[in-house]
């Protein structure tokens, strides 16, 4: 049963690791460790998985058996046919395990860069709008309203048609579209801070807008923005995966999980002949995507639960 080996077994192993890691997290002494003491298993699972993904993404060139685009003579190898290629090779003769590891590195890396860019744009405009107010605030806010009136995937498809399909264009388009949500949050959070007395004091001291944003507002808005970063990363990650799956996102020769799902989906019919190993191949990158977003959601859910007083 390929499904068992590929999906259920890793999940069981990860839960086991998370269980052990939770004990480790709980062991952290001091005020910092107190955060982890009441940690539920879901949060420990999420945190462990996120850490493992980050490690794997950073270390991909070291742990991958071959180079990212290294082509071998044996193409379309099935998993287990050749012990040199554990998961087999694709239609061009590239090792699938290597592609999977690099795919994670690229997809996560690109999603991270895109989210960071979205926060840079959104938070900058949001804080400026909050501090200055007036017509500038009105213009930017109404523009954001219009941008948000079209679903992001639809808008991204339209913009990618115009600018052409390339990885760079996709990063820029998604960053701009996603920055609208960050803008809303940054403006709201910034608006609450701007009315504080210490801002008034800084203004009276004659501080410039740069000082106000970086020294006064940013440190006070860091916590909500950080929690939002996790959620926005999930969203961007899924959007990039969906676009790549449609063939409009990350372009070859870069390996990425969305494209891999589409390319490997032809193997799914092998389940009919009882070859579950081959049939589960497209589920591998798809499950990898799902696992990461689930893990981030678990972690953020726990953080929000802890810090927002929603708990009764």
């Amino acid at each position: 049963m390929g499904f068992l080996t590929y999906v259920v077994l890793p999940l069981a192993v990860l839960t086991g690791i998370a269980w052990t890691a939770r004990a480790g997290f709980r062991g952290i002494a001091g005020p910092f460790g107190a955060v982890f003491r009441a940690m539920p298993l879901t949060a420990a699972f999420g945190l462990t998985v996120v850490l493992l993904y980050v490690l794997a993404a950073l270390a991909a060139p070291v742990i991958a058996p071959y180079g990212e685009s290294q082509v071998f003579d044996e193409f379309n190898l099935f998993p287990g046919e050749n012990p040199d290629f554990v998961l087999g090779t694709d239609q061009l003769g590239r090792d699938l395990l290597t592609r999977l590891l690099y795919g994670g590195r690229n997809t996560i890396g690109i999603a991270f860069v895109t989210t960071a860019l979205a926060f840079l744009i959104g938070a900058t405009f949001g804080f400026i709008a909050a501090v200055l107010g007036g017509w500038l605030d009105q213009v930017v806010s109404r523009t954001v309203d219009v941008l948000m009136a079209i679903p992001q995937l639809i808008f991204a498809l339209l913009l990618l048609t115009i600018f052409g399909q390339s990885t760079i264009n996709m990063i820029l388009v998604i960053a701009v579209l996603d920055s609208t949500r960050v803008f809303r949050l940054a403006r709201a959070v910034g608006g609450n801070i701007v009315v504080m007395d210490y801002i008034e004091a800084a203004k009276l001291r004659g501080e410039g807008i740069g000082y106000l944003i970086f020294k006064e507002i940013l440190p006070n808005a860091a916590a909500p923005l950080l929690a939002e970063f996790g959620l926005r990363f999930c969203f961007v990650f899924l959007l990039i995966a969906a676009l790549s799956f449609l063939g409009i996102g990350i372009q070859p020769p870069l390996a990425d999980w969305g494209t891999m799902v589409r390319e490997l989906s032809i193997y799914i019919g092998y389940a009919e002949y009882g070859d579950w190993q081959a049939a589960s191949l497209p589920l591998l990158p798809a499950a990898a995507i799902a696992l990461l977003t689930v893990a981030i959601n678990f972690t953020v859910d726990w953080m929000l639960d802890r810090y927002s007083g929603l708990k009764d």
Partner: protein
Amino acid sequence: MSGLARMVGQRLALGAFTLLIVSMVIFAAIEALPGDFAEAILGQGATPEAVAAIRESLGMDRSAVERYFAWLGGVFSGDFGVSFSQLSFQSQYGQTGERDIVTVADQLAPRFANTIFLAATAAAVAVPLSLALGILAALYRGSIFDRAANVGTLTSISSPEFFVAYILILFLAAANPIFPSISKIHADLDFWERLYRTVLPALTLTLVVTAHMMRMTRVAIINLMASQYIEMARLKGVPRWRVIVRHALPNALAPIINVIALNLAYLVTGVVVVEVVFVYPGIGQMFVDAVKLRDMPTVQACCLVFAAAYILLNLLADVLSVLTNPRLRHPK
């Protein structure tokens, strides 16, 4: 009553205005296309005369504002123009160019019906299911059921649509051939056969949307149950079911309707990926194909249809929540 009419009228006007702005943005897209389209289509054979002829037949020789209103007027009468891939230019072929041209609207209409059918099937299952599950989870908050539902729905929300889709294909189409993995839909299928071929894509959408809707319903009910008049009713000894039916439900209507409309709007995006996975002949599929070919009139038409559906559903949520909320219905 006039206050209510004005309020609804205001929302409708705002929605119409948003739609107008969005149509401008979508139209501006073709203007921003880098390079000259006529030159691109002709490639090597771009003689100045041929370029001028194509520009004229596309109406490019007029000003952008003129063309926008011509396009908008066409859209209102159901004319989205002719797909680039269907264009045959007199100058290019040296003939009269008289052949049956399939317009974008001709391509769009049957696919639109298919997409509506898919979305409606998914919604018909998802709405009652998620409402029931959401209310149950809220009532038995903190129970095993609630916690299991929380983990389950969080997982389902976080998974990309194609993950859910391929799991369903693997088990219900490939390993056990119960349903077809490719939805071949055409006009002369009877209802049941059509439904049978739509089951897998509809099930995928249902699973994803149910999770969203259930979580939102749960939160709406929990917020409601925490309000003081519910506590009051409970304290004076009203039976539990009566608290829910008489006191909670009438007030829960507004948030629940809101949740439904918002999630139907979410279906708009979800449909694109799901249609591609199942090769379902809907607008989503057409949209993605047109984007790959950079076929502007088709992209614009699909984009406008999706955006309009999204805006209308959000508008519907807005108006219905005014209508179902007595406090908004009778403003002081």
